[in-house]
């Protein structure tokens, strides 16, 4: 429509009045014009009557008539016409337009993210109550005056203001508001305005997850928020993650509690990142305390997507990528290998003739390949004001860069989420998901012969396969009847002449990998929410988590050496059923009076976990084929069966009070009481309180405007709280009982007798492990909150740590668990983000987070001393848990340079008085740490920590004319990695190239690396194997393009985006091993690189289309 300048001269109307009250007449005029009449108090006689007839007269002419008859004066100011008693003879009608002319503007409001029209966007003229909302097509029309400021606002989007000039069409694109979306933060059992939050909570929104290539949700958390560290157990498809919130708090399980749509989750692999609306990480104790038990390691709350009323949508997204190995570790080639072994005087080694003219096999090139991954996701959502729904499905498939389909992960998910308002006081709904995955993994993270370890260790002289005749040692093995493995072309795989033991040709090993794991899982919950009285809500929620997991594996016959062989084809199966239900009922009541707002929460929860498994193994497969790899098809005499079943329960009561005064003074207190069946009667219950408070300084009346122009938001907050943890425990571990498990003794006729014994010492006093944390934080917003800074300091102390007890050995049995120590994690967290004004066509955002953390075991029960951790190779305990040190620090020999000549050795032995130790030049100088004048195991000491001093993430987004570009970098600083894949008892194993290049070659050659050596424990069990593990990894480098709306409209699309991304493509590290993220599934093995599947780098293309 056209804009018009509205003046009383331009509005024509027809109106008749016959002795009518003036007020009635003016009301008629109001109906026919955009004006309202206002009466000044001085008018005493509103009942005056007028008579006139107007036919298409201007408003001015009509008013002049009335003025003449009544003596009233009219003065029009903007939309109002003021009526005054003037007692004048002349008509008085003023039109004070002053250039403020009426304009009718219209337009369409769309979302910047996907160009979808937004219905229900509120538009108000700033400074007035005038306004409208957009219709279902996102369209609006509003009559305003030039110079008015229109404010467009919509939940989840940034407000936008536009000053009306002479334009008549104002189309608005609203930017998704990451900040404003956080205005509402999901907390335990409810939501809270972000401005009122007093704890340390970080949020991650769907938009950040929509185009990630990650298989698992935990992976997507990596680097996105301060205080959260994520380390993959491995880079293999579908492998688990170690998520640590504010450090490692316990010596065993330190995983956070995952709450998915309000229900405790057993595991995370069933969720596709595309299903997620938001993730909240409750970091401080006060936030987590509402979850009491199990909240000690932090809480991750995941909310899945739901439909939106009056917004029917179909979204399809697709992603396809190729993965490849990143920076390959360089190993010695055949020549170097031969020379190294010769110099090390390793008894079994190739001769120079053996390697003449060959560089040998590069096993990494042979084992690793490019591998595809793809993801499809289809979502239908919508609804009306009473019901909303979302139905989605996804498919994900990833093959491994080592072994292709031998290490794959394939997953289907189906989700149905809906909410229904049945009555004004009753809402019900459900979140329901089914998933299916099929995972195959290859052996890794094991120095005793895993595939990856073999790839590192296998000698370069041996060929992949013999295409041209067999060497004598292979002929001999065949002659002895050994089942040598052939490749698909029918050639025998290479058998090493030099490296035997547990090792085998890695490609042949891959061929022999047959295992897979299949899981079917149903997770869901149903809820009903009653609101009998305004402000009072009663919620009841019942959730289930049922997973059915099947592992199947079989092993053909093979022979690599006398210690790596299988003479009888065998198989194994395991069926694992885990079912849990959780029922929660809670009441919230919100009440505000004057400037005080209260929210009360009280509730109860009960959880029951039921678990059972059955497993079996059998051998003597009739044929070496998948079809015969089941227990029914073998003779029965070699079958074994195992089974197990248990039940555990948790019962809880909780309450919370939240209070704020004018949004300035904030206060929260929670208490939770949990009872667990894992503890002995009398110790089952624990109480976990918390308090927190905040002060929004910028809301104070005295907060100077001059300051708020720059620093627009200031909030100070502090919290204290306690949480419980029983993650280290399983059923009945406090109780010793008589068991016959594994106790058999062959009698003198060769038949087994069964024995029985107490399983352990008893500890009925075992009680809850408690994590106590204080947190002090400040939140600052600058320049209208374009720049945001959050700083937190925290001290988290795990008390009464549940740890493996070490009763004195003379007590005769192990004390499995005691409350034995304290672990402290303290540190700083910084989150900074900046975005430019969103109205500009060029927009960008930069966000960074940084966490500095120190981990220390601050107390250990005198009865515990120190706890020995993980072994590496033969006879070396490489990690320890000890007071005054970080959790599971590396323990080994400490070295101090390299002996350059015999005189140095003699001088060293003389000056220290060390006996029984006879190093050679080129050996490391080993420090007699305990000064007992011998070099022995007791000299092993702290040589490094697997924990980083700090970690960080940096993310930058740029949007310009439909193009978007993202860089996401993540890294950590100050951790050590123990290179644990070299074994002292296997000196012929190949070594990384730098072992050769940096080697000591004679006096003065180097004082930092040793002479060729494959077996010296003073080298391989020492700090020489500890390397700096800091890295920075470009997690994502993404370029996207959103098709222009003119184009998408023609295709009847709401939105379409295409993108390409490089994931994990660039890594910066000094670690000379395969991958600085070399993780481990074992808690006490953190940072030990035994040959771990590296995190692949991926190049991906994707498309997302919304209809």
């Amino acid at each position, binding site marked *: 429509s056209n804009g018009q300048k509205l003046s009383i001269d331009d509005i024509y109307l027809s109106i008749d009045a016959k002795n009518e009250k003036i007020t009635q007449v003016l009301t008629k005029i109001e109906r026919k014009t955009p004006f309202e009449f206002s009466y000044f108090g001085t008018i005493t006689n509103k009942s005056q009557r007028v008579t006139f007839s107007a036919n298409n007269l201007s408003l001015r002419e009509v008013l002049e008539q009335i003025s003449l008859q009544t003596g009233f004066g009219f003065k029009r100011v903007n939309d109002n016409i003021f009526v005054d008693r003037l007692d004048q003879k002349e008509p008085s009608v003023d039109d004070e337009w002053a250039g403020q002319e009426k304009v009718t503007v219209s337009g369409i409001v769309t979302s910047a993210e996907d160009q979808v029209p937004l219905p229900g966007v509120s538009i108000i003229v700033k400074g007035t109550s005038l306004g409208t909302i957009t219709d279902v097509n996102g369209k609006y029309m509003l009559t305003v005056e030039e110079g008015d400021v229109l404010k467009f606002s919509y939940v989840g989007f940034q407000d936008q203001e536009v000053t009306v000039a002479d334009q008549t069409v104002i189309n608005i694109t609203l930017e998704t508001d990451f900040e404003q979306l956080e205005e509402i933060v999901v907390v335990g059992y409810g939501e809270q305005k972000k401005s009122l939050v007093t704890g340390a909570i970080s949020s991650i929104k769907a938009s950040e997850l929509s185009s990630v290539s990650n298989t698992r949700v935990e992976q997507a958390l990596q680097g996105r928020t301060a205080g959260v560290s994520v380390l993959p157990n491995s880079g293999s498809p579908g492998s688990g993650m170690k998520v640590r919130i504010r450090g490692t708090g316990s010596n065993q399980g330190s995983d956070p509690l995952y709450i998915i749509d309000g229900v405790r989750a057993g595991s995370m692999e069933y969720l596709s990142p595309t299903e997620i609306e938001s993730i909240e990480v409750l970091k401080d104790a006060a936030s987590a305390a509402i979850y009491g038990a199990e909240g000690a390691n932090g809480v991750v709350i995941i909310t899945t997507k739901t439909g939106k009323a009056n917004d029917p949508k179909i979204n399809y997204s697709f992603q396809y990528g190729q993965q490849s190995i990143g920076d390959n570790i360089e190993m010695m080639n055949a020549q170097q290998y031969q020379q190294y072994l010769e110099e090390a005087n390793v008894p079994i080694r190739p001769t120079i003739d053996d390697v003449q003219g060959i560089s040998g096999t590069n096993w990494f090139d042979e084992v690793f390949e490019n591998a595809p991954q793809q993801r499809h996701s289809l979502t239908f959502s919508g609804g009306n004001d009473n019901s909303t729904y979302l139905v989605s499905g996804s498919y994900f498939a990833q093959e491994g860069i080592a072994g292709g389909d031998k290490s794959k992960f394939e997953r289907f998910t189906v989700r149905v989420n809906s909410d229904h308002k049945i009555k004004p006081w009753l809402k019900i709904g459900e979140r329901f998901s089914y998933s299916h995955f099929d995972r195959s993994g290859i052996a890794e993270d094991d120095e005793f012969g895993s595939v990856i370890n073999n790839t590192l260790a296998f000698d370069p002289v041996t060929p992949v396969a013999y295409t041209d005749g067999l060497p004598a040692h292979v002929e001999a093995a065949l002659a002895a009847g050994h089942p040598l493995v052939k490749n698909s072309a029918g050639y025998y795989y290479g058998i090493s002449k030099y490296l035997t033991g547990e090792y085998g040709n890695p490609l042949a090993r891959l061929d022999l990998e047959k295992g897979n794991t299949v899981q079917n899982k149903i997770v869901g919950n149903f809820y009903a929410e009653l609101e009998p009285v305004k402000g009072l809500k009663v919620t009841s929620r019942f959730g289930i988590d049922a997973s059915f997991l099947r592992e199947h594996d079989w092993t053909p016959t093979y022979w690599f050496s006398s210690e790596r062989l299988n003479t009888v084809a065998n198989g194994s199966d395991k069926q694992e059923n885990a079912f849990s239900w959780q029922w929660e009922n809670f009441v919230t009541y919100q009440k505000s009076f004057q400037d005080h707002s209260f929210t009360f929460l009280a509730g109860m929860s009960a959880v029951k976990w039921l678990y059972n498994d059955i497993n079996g193994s059998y051998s003597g497969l009739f044929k070496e084929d998948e079809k015969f790899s089941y227990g029914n098809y073998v003779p029965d005499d070699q079958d074994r069966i195992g089974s197990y079943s248990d039940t555990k329960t948790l019962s809880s009561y909780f309450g919370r009070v939240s209070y704020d005064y004018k949004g300035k003074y904030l206060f929260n207190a929670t208490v939770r009481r949990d009872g667990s069946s894992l503890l002995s009667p009398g110790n089952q219950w624990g109480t976990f309180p918390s308090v927190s408070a905040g002060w929004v300084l910028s809301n104070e009346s005295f907060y100077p405007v001059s300051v708020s122009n720059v620093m627009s938001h200031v909030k100070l907050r502090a919290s204290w709280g306690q949480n419980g943890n029983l993650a280290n425990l399983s059923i009945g571990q406090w109780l010793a009982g*008589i068991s016959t498990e*594994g106790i058999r003794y062959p*009698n003198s006729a060769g*038949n087994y007798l069964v024995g029985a*014994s107490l399983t352990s010492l008893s500890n009925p006093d075992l009680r809850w492990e408690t994590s106590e944390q204080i947190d002090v934080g400040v939140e600052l917003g600058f320049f209208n909150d374009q720049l945001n800074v959050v700083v937190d300091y925290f001290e988290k102390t795990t008390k009464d740590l549940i740890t493996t007890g070490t009763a004195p050995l*003379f007590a005769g049995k192990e004390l499995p668990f005691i409350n034995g120590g304290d672990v402290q994690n303290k540190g700083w967290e910084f989150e900074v983000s900046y975005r430019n004004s969103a109205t500009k066509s060029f927009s960008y955002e930069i966000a960074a987070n940084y966490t500095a953390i120190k981990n220390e075991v601050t107390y250990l029960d005198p009865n515990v001393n120190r706890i020995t951790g993980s072994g590496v190779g033969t*006879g070396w305990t490489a990690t320890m848990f000890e007071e005054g040190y970080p959790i599971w620090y590396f323990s080994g020999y400490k070295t101090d340079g390299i002996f350059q000549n015999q005189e140095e050795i003699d001088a060293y032995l003389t000056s220290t008085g060390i006996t029984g130790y006879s190093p050679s030049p080129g050996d490391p100088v080993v420090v007699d740490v305990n000064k*007992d004048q011998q070099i022995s195991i007791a000299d092993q000491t702290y040589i490094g920590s697997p924990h980083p001093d700090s970690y960080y993430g940096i993310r930058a987004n740029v949007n310009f004319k439909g193009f978007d570009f993202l860089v996401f970098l993540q890294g950590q600083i100050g951790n050590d990695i123990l290179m644990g894949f070299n074994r002292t008892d296997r000196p012929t194993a190949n070594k990384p190239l730098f072992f050769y290049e940096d080697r000591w070659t004679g006096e003065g050659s180097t004082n930092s690396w040793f002479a060729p050596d494959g077996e010296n424990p003073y080298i391989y069990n020492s700090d020489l194997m500890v390397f700096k593990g800091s890295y920075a990894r470009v997690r994502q480098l993404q370029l996207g393009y959103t098709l222009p709306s003119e184009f998408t409209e023609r295709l009847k699309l709401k939105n379409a985006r295409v993108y390409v991304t490089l994931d994990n493509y660039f890594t910066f590290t000094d670690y000379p091993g395969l991958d600085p993220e070399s993780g481990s599934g074992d808690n006490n093995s953190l940072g030990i690189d035994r040959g771990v599947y590296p995190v692949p780098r991926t190049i991906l293309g994707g498309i997302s289309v919304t209809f």
Partner: protein
Amino acid sequence: CGDSFLEQPIPGKYPEEDFYKTDEDVLLAVTNIYDLMSAQYYKDWNSMVIVKMLLSDNCNAGGSGFGDQPGYQALDDFNTDAANDKVRAAWKQCYEAIYDANKVVNNVQGETALRKRLIAEAKVLRAFNYFDLVVFWGEVPLITQEVDPADYTKTTRAPKADSYALIEKDLQEAISDLPLKSAYGEDEKFRVAKGTAQALLGKVYLYQEKWANAAEQFEEVINSGEYSLESSVAEVFSKAGEFGAESLFELSFTSAEAYDWGNFPWDTKPESNIHIQLIGPRSDFYVKAPADSLIGGWGFITPKESLYNAYVAAGDESRRKSIVMSETELKDAGGNWTNTEAHDYEGFFQRKYGTFAGLSGDPVTELNYGTNFRILRYADVLLMAAEANYEAGNEGIAQGYLNQVRSRPGTGLPDVMASGNDLFEAIVTERQLELAFEGVRFLDLVRWGRAVQELGSLGFVAGKHELLPIPADEVNVAGLSQNAGY
């Protein structure tokens, strides 16, 4: 949800207070003690039997190199410290067996003949373990009851005399309640018999130099007629020799488990004797002779040349052949050894606990050796009886017992007619040659005061290495005092 919701059954655990009530219960409990003592490999390499071998001058540690099982290497080199994992495991295993023996002794009243016998078995096993503790660590905590956690740091090391008193009392009580070996059925020969207790008691007296008491106990065994010498040492250590005429106590293993590389229980306790594989000639370098069944192993416990020479010096050819084989013999028989520089290798192979293919089972020979460890056998009893009588002044009797061992058909050595110190030296030599690799040599040298003389060149320091260090945990946690020099 009340507390009943939190009462969930604990699977697989039977209450202790309801146990030890029936014959069946007590049988199970006592079987467990035997099983614990046979747990020579328990999640790790930690055998008391191997520790005893390593301390002697019979052998070196061996293995792939000195980085292979550093704990064993250190024991061999007298470079042991309190952090040594093998020493810790050996100590721990003794106390674990004692714990379960205590449970039987304290909880069972002997209401039936069977239970009376089982208590006696438990007492002998407790005595066995305390004896190992006393001879290897000296003063040790004397635990006869469940230790209250409050006493973890208050318990101290008891005088040796107290330990010996308990050992002697246990054995004396057991002797009266135990049957003769012949009274046990064939399937029960693994159990300690009256003779076992008597022989052990004799040994306990011998170590305390109570010569007459020792001789008395040994003679009870000898005169019981329950035991006799096999025709040769090879026969003793053959499959047929297990629980045979010469056996007083063995740890029982089986080759029936059919372990393969996929299912071998590396993380628990195998029922086969994996140590046999450990101490076979290192297969990297060993090529077996065609007609010989001694196959490759992992190369630990390599015989010292001095041991071979001792047989040569004694003209003890036939017995030596069943205990030590030389590289020359191997090559002469058509076998080979390819690495003269192998770690700790002096040119000899051990055959007493040999990796004979026939002693193992299918499907993987390496993992299924069923060879029992011989803990106490009749030849040892005869030689101890000879020594006790010699010391008690009965030289003639001593000669008789000594010569019984020497005149065994498979040994066929001339009788010793010497007297005085020569007779003693003959006993010393006989013990070295007959009992090599059986874990007695080191203890003999120590009690004879000859350890420095024989072991000094290997690193033995007088005043220190007579005893093993108290494990670091016990010192740091429980506050036990450490042995001198550690």
